[in-house]
């Protein structure tokens, strides 16, 4: 019996061949921790009496959830994070302004490469699947990983998704990703890895691949991964000289299910409150007034997403009743936005351009909503209170729909603006 990408990567990490269903203790190539949780893992290790990490060279810390401290408490936490990083001798520390979003810049910098296995204290580590790496979130037990070097997991089954065709005019990969949360039922996806392949992948760049790997976890997937292809090898070799071993599934690999999905008829999709899989065509919610809009997050903070926003915002003004915040995921994307003229398009349109990182998606620490306000955004989740007051309403959509809605002051079909 052949093996899936996931089984191959976890076999290497476990030091022996493994198959779906087994409980194993895989050794990660990298462990990432974001922002203030550094303070929490340090506290946990001190309470347990553990003086050092299993391997500080395999740990990466980044400041992305609140890249600019917005309170004295946050400033104190950031100071504590810097002290803790020094205490444990962690060299891969990407503080504010040094990298950006931790689910994105490690791929840009060639730190995360095909075939790697990563544990992270944050659920959207699944993004690393964009380059053929396998990321598993580990929340409470990240302290155990940091102390012992691993933690138990059950090897997940894989659901294969073959993509065919081409997105129609006015649709984005976020629209496809949201439609997939409907088409791949939550009961099936539960604790599975979504593995993407198929002929359409050749036309999908880093932004689209990240978006596709980002959303499945919202319906219970353990992770997501794109089968490495010629695009992957070009992208990674353009960014690092370090060696890597891409893994692809065997032709006779055992899948839990296989889907063939056509991109040809994907229309703009919106997820209405209160869950990201409450997905519907944009026509169902057109006309709902909005006060707040956001383009960014680990799902949609790529340069391609910024280009999509600019397609709508060039020469237009954001509606007077709307605050539009645009947050590039990383410093590299921010620099390219500036050099390619996107930054001025956004500012001239009346948008605010934020510091690279999560933006308001990280529980609304930045630009939260007040009770009764309505946001349309490209964030990852839309549960009550996710972005400020629990009395605010959060709609999730692709960057074209968000930009169009910000201009119109109400949820709008972007195809009318292109």
């Amino acid at each position, binding site marked *: 019996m052949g093996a899936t990408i996931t089984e191959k990567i976890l076999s290497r990490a476990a030091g022996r061949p493994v198959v779906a269903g087994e409980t194993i203790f895989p050794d990660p190539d990298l462990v990432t921790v974001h922002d203030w949780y550094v303070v929490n893992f340090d506290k946990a290790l001190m309470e*347990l*009496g553990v003086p050092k990490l299993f391997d500080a060279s395999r740990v990466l810390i980044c400041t992305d959830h609140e890249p600019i401290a917005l309170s004295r408490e946050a400033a104190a936490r950031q100071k504590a994070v810097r002290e803790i990083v020094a205490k444990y001798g962690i060299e891969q520390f990407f503080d504010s302004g040094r990298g950006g979003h931790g689910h994105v810049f490690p791929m840009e910098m060639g730190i995360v490469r095909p075939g790697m296995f990563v544990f992270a204290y944050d659920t959207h580590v699944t993004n690393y699947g964009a380059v053929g790496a396998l990321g598993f979130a580990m929340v409470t*037990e990240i302290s*155990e990983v940091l*102390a012992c070097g691993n933690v138990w997991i059950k090897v997940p089954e894989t659901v294969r998704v073959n993509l065919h065709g081409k997105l129609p005019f006015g649709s984005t990969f976020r629209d496809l990703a949201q439609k997939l949360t409907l088409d791949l039922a939550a009961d099936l996806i539960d604790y599975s890895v979504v593995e993407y392949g198929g002929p359409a992948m050749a036309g999908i760049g880093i932004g689209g691949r990240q978006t596709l790997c980002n959303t499945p976890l919202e319906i219970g997937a353990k992770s997501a991964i794109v089968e490495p292809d010629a695009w992957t090898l070009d992208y990674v070799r353009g960014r690092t000289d370090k060696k890597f071993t891409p893994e692809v599934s065997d032709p006779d690999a055992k899948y839990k299910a296989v889907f063939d999905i056509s991109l040809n008829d994907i229309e703009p999709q919106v997820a209405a409150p209160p869950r990201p899989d409450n997905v519907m065509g944009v026509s169902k919610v057109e006309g709902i007034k909005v006060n707040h809009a956001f383009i960014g997050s680990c799902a949609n903070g790529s340069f391609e997403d910024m280009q999509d926003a600019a397609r709508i915002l060039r020469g237009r003004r954001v509606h007077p009743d709307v605050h539009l915040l645009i947050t590039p995921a990383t410093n590299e994307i921010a620099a390219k936005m500036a050099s390619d003229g996107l930054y001025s398009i956004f500012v001239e349109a009346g948008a605010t351009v934020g510091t690279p990182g999560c933006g308001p998606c990280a529980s609304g620490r930045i630009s939260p909503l007040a009770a009764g306000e309505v946001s349309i955004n490209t964030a990852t989740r839309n*549960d009550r*209170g996710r972005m400020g007051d*629990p009395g605010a309403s959060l709609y999730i959509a692709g960057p074209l729909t968000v930009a169009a809605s910000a201009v119109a002051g109400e949820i709008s079909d972007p195809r009318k603006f292109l």
Partner: protein
Amino acid sequence: MDLIYEGNCWKFGDNVSVDSDMTKKEFSTQRETRHEVLKDFLMCGIDPDFAKKVSPNDIIVGGKRFAQGNPHIQGLLGIAANQMGLVVESIQRGSYRNAINAGVPFISHAAGVTQACETGDRLRVNFTTGLFENLTRGAAHQYTPLSTDLLETIRIGGWKPMVKLRLQKMGLIPA
């Protein structure tokens, strides 16, 4: 030693949110873990007085995708703080781990359990064997229990005592 809870049933539907239904969202973002703080806010997003009504050994019964959302542990710690058990039709996987880590005895895939009881029924659940008894109705259902090693983690109180033992076995902290 069996993990047997006998108490009142408190039934919820599908898609109970771990952050906005099961606790105060602020506790999740503040990473609050103290039982004494979380205890009184269990299920406060659905019923602010819920914690006042329940007793130790009572059982929460949930539908599909129980504890869905960003996998914060606070809602599960709230169940542990009230010394309650949990039986659900399905549970989001991050919350599955967090229920173990919080030391909550639970049955993770009890198909049709929401049809087998109502709030107020007297239940007896053996979490070691998976036997679910509705004493009010005089009916019993057999579900698949958690594996022995996961039940052992729950029995000793969750992740922290378990990881202490692991660190001692690895020689990373004194026995």
